[in-house]
């Protein structure tokens, strides 16, 4: 089956001599929900901008659904929908006009573009705001507007560059649901995000890019299995003077009613509970100190671990 995205030996050197991409390779399967993660300045946005032709590559090859972005420009573009990081629509235009006009840029006749704009604006909950100037929308609504605009030509691949940045939790969750829905309908999604909880929750496959190189490219579960150690926080009813001693585990007191335990991958949790019960410590709740992917991400980037 044709891959949704193929990147081969992609390099980008900016005019000032900054080497943003040092020959990356990526494959994204059709129907995938793919996360491209990396610290600021790692090369995520450069990669996405080259795919969408907002940045010219120095060398290498990019194919979207088998169409080379250089030799089959038009067909490659028709397969792509883009939700950028920054708001990039006219603030003075009406919501409806922005989406309909975008359809026009893809050669969709006006009547059809209007129908599709209505469909996607309803789907994303902006139909009531269709006659409002874009500048009057809240930040979350503007992000949703960009998603509706990116979908109006019904692309096979949707690229989202930090789509939930600055969006409140409730709205973020509803956007996740929407993205899952369109992914289930067959749209391949490529996502960059700084919210690693988001990537862990949504993405089936993840690549991590750092300093212009891909340092991990695997499925999310396999990636998480690389996590050697997790830190858990325990809230207890007892008043603690010091962290409970548990054989084989490192513990640390946080305050009088909570402490943290570092758990290696092969250790499990049973012995912790057994030990706490023996010490007559009542556990109220337990949670991860940090998102699992976040811990792994930080350790991988810190190591500069090349796959």
């Amino acid at each position, binding site marked *: 089956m044709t891959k949704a995205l193929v990147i081969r030996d992609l390099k980008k050197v*900016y005019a000032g001599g900054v080497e943003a991409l040092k020959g990356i390779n990526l494959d994204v399967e059709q129907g995938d929900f793919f996360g491209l993660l990396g610290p600021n300045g790692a090369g995520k946005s450069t990669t996405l901008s080259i795919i969408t032709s907002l940045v010219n590559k120095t060398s290498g090859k990019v194919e979207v659904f088998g169409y080379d972005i250089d030799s089959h420009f038009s067909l490659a573009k028709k397969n792509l929908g883009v939700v950028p990081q920054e708001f990039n629509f006219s603030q003075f235009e009406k919501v409806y006009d922005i989406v309909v006009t975008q359809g026009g840029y893809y050669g969709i006749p006006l009547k059809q573009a209007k129908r599709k704009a209505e469909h996607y604006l309803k789907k994303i909950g902006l139909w009531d705001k269709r006659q409002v100037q874009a500048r009057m929308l809240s930040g979350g609504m503007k992000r949703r507007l960009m998603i509706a605009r990116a979908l109006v030509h019904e692309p096979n691949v949707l690229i989202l560059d930090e789509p939930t940045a600055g969006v409140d939790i409730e709205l973020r969750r509803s956007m996740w649901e929407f993205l899952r829905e369109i992914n289930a309908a067959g749209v391949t999604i490529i996502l960059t995000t700084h919210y690693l909880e988001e990537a862990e929750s949504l993405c089936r496959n993840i690549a991590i890019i750092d300093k212009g190189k891909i340092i991990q490219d695997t499925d999310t579960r396999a990636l998480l299995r690389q996590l050697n150690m997790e830190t858990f926080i325990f809230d207890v009813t007892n008043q603690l003077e010091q962290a409970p001693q548990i054989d084989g585990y490192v513990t640390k007191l946080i305050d009088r009613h909570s402490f943290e335990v570092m758990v290696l991958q092969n250790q499990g949790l049973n012995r912790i509970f057994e030990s706490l019960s023996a010490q007559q410590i009542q556990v109220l709740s337990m949670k991860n100190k940090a998102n699992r992917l976040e811990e792994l991400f930080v350790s991988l980037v810190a190591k500069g671990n090349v796959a």
Partner: protein
Amino acid sequence: MSFYELWVTFSTIVIKEIRRFLRIWIQTLIPPIITMALYFVIFGNLIGSRVGEMGGFDYVAYIVPGLIMMSVITNSYSNVVSSFYSAKFQHQIEEILVSPTPNVLILLGYIVGGVARGLIVGFIVTLVSMFFTDLNIAHAGIMVTVVILTSVLFALGGFLNAIYAKNFDDISIIPNFVLTPLTYLGGVFYSIDLLPEFWRNVSLVNPILYMVNAFRYGVLGVSDIDISVAFGVILLSITVFFSLGLYLLKNSTGLRS
């Protein structure tokens, strides 16, 4: 893309551009009309009545073609330079750049938007001029052709300016320090036959002189220069500007990193 899809894309850009300047008509359509009406009153009626005839016509009738042309040039240029630079500055241009729209259609779409504004303002100024003088068109075909070609040329000029511009100052430098002086010195208010030989020869390197005179020939039937030379200058300039515009779009100067 099929021919029909290309047509839809092109008309989308043009409609968007026209809708933009119509939405802000108080800024785009009214000021040039007021300015030109003042020119007609002050230079045409008040001062013109003392100037007497020029080129065999009342002074007000003589300056009408130049003033119409001035409004067409200014508006075609400023429409494209402000619209394209704003789109670049606010990143709206990315809406088109991520789509399959070919560069030539982006260029043509913006040009036609600029031409539309230039011609609408030119038409309204022509109507206003009729309150001050009778217009008996000498060569309608030449008049229409010249005004359209000039409008295309200056829309292209605005496009090039917008591509090179890095800030809002850059989009006002050319109109204020190049376009306005060249227009005023381009024979709008006088015949270059009135100038000493040296300044007459200097005037001949001003491209706007050719456009103003070609248009004046279309309206009044008189010109300081050979019409065929005027057409040659305009068409050559359009070819050079259009090629440069396409080259800059293709090589993404100022648009893509």
